[in-house]
C-alpha cells in the first residue's frame, strides 16, 4: 500500500514505514472510536495483531501495549532487527486485518470511506 521509491535497506526506511502505518492506525482510531468506543477500537487493532502474530511475530509488541503509546524509541527497540520488507508486509497485513474486522462489525458503514482515507494517507508518505 505504501508508495515505492525509497531506500528499502536503510533503517530510515524502516522507521518511515513504521511511522506511516502507525499514523494509519491512529487515523483508524480517530475515526472508529467516536462510533464504536475506545475499548472496541483497541480490541480491533490488538486482536488483529494477535491473529497475525504467528505469521509476523514482531507484531506481538502491539498486543502488550496500547498502540497510542508506541514511540520512536519503542519502534527502534522492538522492530530494530526486522527486515524492512518483512516489516512493511506485516504492517500492511495488520491494516488489512483491521479493515476486515471493521467490516465484520459495521458492514459498509465506515470501512470503505476510511480505507480510502488511509490509502491516500499512505500514498502521500514520501
Amino acid at each position, binding site marked *: 500500500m505504501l508508495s515505492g521509491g525509497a531506500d528499502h535497506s536503510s533503517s530510515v526506511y524502516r522507521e518511515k514505514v513504521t511511522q506511516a502505518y502507525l499514523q494509519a492506525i491512529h487515523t483508524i482510531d480517530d475515526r472508529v472510536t467516536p462510533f464504536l468506543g475506545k475499548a472496541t477500537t483497541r*480490541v480491533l487493532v490488538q486482536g488483529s495483531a*494477535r*491473529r497475525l502474530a504467528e505469521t509476523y511475530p514482531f507484531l506481538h509488541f502491539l498486543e502488550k501495549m496500547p498502540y497510542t503509546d508506541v514511540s520512536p524509541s519503542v519502534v527502534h527497540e522492538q522492530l530494530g532487527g526486522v527486515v524492512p520488507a518483512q516489516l512493511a508486509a506485516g504492517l500492511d497485513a495488520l491494516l488489512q486485518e483491521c479493515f476486515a474486522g471493521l467490516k*465484520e*462489525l459495521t458492514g459498509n458503514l465506515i470501512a470503505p470511506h476510511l480505507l480510502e482515507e488511509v490509502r491516500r494517507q499512505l500514498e502521500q508518505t514520501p
Partner: protein
Amino acid sequence: MQPQQKVTASAYRSLIGQNGDRLAALRQQMDFINTIGKRFVAAIDRFQVHRALLSTLQDLYHFSACSILLEEDPIELTFQLSIIPSHPLNQAFIAAMMESIARAAEVIDFPRVTADELALMAYLDAPDDLAWSDSATPSAVTGIGDFLNIPLTVENRIIGMLSLFDEREGVFDAELLQLTTMIADYAAVALENVRLRERERALWRDAEMERQRLVLIINSMAEGLLITNEEGAITSLNNSAQHLLFQARLPLEETSTPLRRLAAFNEAKWLTDLADIIDKALAGHIIMGHELVADASDEAVPLTLSISAAPLYDSRQSMQTRILGVVAVLNDITSHKQLEKLKDEFVSIVSHELRTPLTTIKGYTQHLIRRIERRLRGTSATLPANAVAELPESYDLRSLNIMQSQTDHLERLVNDLLDLSRVQWGELNLHYSSFYLADVLAESVRLAQISAEQHTIFLDIDTPDSKLVADKLRISQVVGNILDNAVKFSPQGKQVTVILKEQGKEFQVSISDRGIGVSPDFFDHIFERFYRVRNTASRQYSGIGMGLFIAKAIVEAHGGGIWLSSNPGTGSTFYFTLPKVPRTGMLPAV
C-alpha cells in the same frame, strides 16, 4: 441609525429562531435519551433488558432480528446467545446470522466459537407484543441484506455483542451508528447490573443454604453449643445447650443480659462457674474440658458437664486481636462419671478383698522369718559363718525375705488403689496432729535408704523449727512416693537430696535426683492418675502411675501445692509446700 437598528433586530430574531430550533432539537434528543434510560433502568431481568433494547432500536430502524451475545463466565469461557426476532425467521437466515456473529466475535477477541456452537446455545426470546405483530409465517428471504455487530462495553471492558440483522440492504445508517452504540452501552450496563444482581442473589442463596445446613448440624449435635457476644451474653445456642440450661431455669429470652448477671440471680451455682469460664475465654484463654457439677441433687453421680470454650476473634482484622465473643461446647459426661464410679467401686472392693489374705500372708511370712532366724542363731554358735550360709534354712530365709519384700510392695499397691478411690470421690479424710516435719523426712529418708543401697540420700533441714499441724501418715506417704520415684528413675545410683525450707507461713520440701528426668511436655500430665511417661528412657520402669496422683491429692487436701522442674537426662526436682497450720475451712477430721 434607524436602518441599522432594523437590521440588528432582524438578525436578533434570526438568531433567536436558530437557537430556538437548536434548543428544540436538543430537548428532543434529551427526551429520547431520557426515555431510553428509563426503559433500561426499569429492567430487572435480562428479558426485560431485551424488550427495552428491542423497543428502543425499533424507534430507529426496522430490522428482522437482533441478538445479544454475552460472556456468561469469563473464567469458564461460556457464552449466552439470545435471539430476539421482529418477525418469524427462516432457518437459513438464522444460520447466516450465526456465521456473522461468530466472525464478529473473533474480531472483538472473544474466545473462538463456531456458528454451529452458537446455534446450539442460542435462545429464542420472542416478545409476544412486539415480535409477532407483522406476520405469523417466516419470511422467504434466506440471506442477510444488512447487519451491525456492536460490542457491549462496560467500563472499557467488552462483555458481549449486540447484533442487528435485516433482509434488505442499506437499512442501517452511519448517521445513527453513534446513537446505536450509545443504546448498546445502555443495554450493556443494564445487562451487567442484571448479571451482578443474579450473582448476588445466587451468593445469598448459597449463603442461606450453608447457614441452614450449619444450623441443622449444630442442632443435631449431642453436645451443647453456645455462643456469647463480647459482653458474655448468650446470643445463640443449640437444642442440647437449651436443654441443659433449661434445667437451671435460666431465662433464655433475656439474650442481652450477660451470663454473669443472670448467674448472680440464679440458684444453680454452676452457672457462676460457667460464667467464669466464659470470662476467661473472653480474656483470650482457651479452656479445655473443664468439669462442672451441674446438679445439686443427692444423686450418687450428679449431672456433670465437661466445658470447653474459646474466644471468637474478629476475622476482618488481619491480626485477629479483637474478641467478638466466645464459643463454648457443653458435654454431658454424667454417664462417663457413672462408669468411672462403678470402676472405682470395683477397684475399692477388690482392694479390700485383697487386703485380708495379704495381711495373713504377711503375718505368716514374718512368723516364718523370725522362726528360721532363731534357728540359725542357734546353729551359728556351733558352725562357721560360711557353713551357716550354706544351710537349707539360710536359703529358705532368703526366699522368705523376698516374699516379704514383694508382699510389702503388693500392700502399698493395694493401699494406693484404696486411696485412689477415696481421692476420686473426695473421701480422703485427714487426721490432723502436731508433729515435726523434719522428723517425718528423716524417717522417710532412713526407710528409703534401706532399699536403695546404690543411692546416697542426703537430708538438709534448713529451718530451726519444723513444727506442723497435718496428717502425719499422709505426709509420710507423700515423701515416700516421691522418694520411691527418685530412686526408681535414677538407676545408676547417685545422689538424692531432700531439702526442707521455711517460707513464711508454710514449709517447702524439695526432693532432687540425678536420674533420667522428665521432658517439660509431660509436666501438665505427670500428676494425673495412671499417667506414665511414655518414652524410651522410662519404658523399662515398672509402676501404674498412682504415686504422684495421690501425693498431689494429699498435698492439695492440706492446702499446699506440688510441682516439678526437670530436664531429660539431668534429673528432676519435685517440690511441695504445706501450710504450718491448716487454713480456714480445712478443719481437722474428728
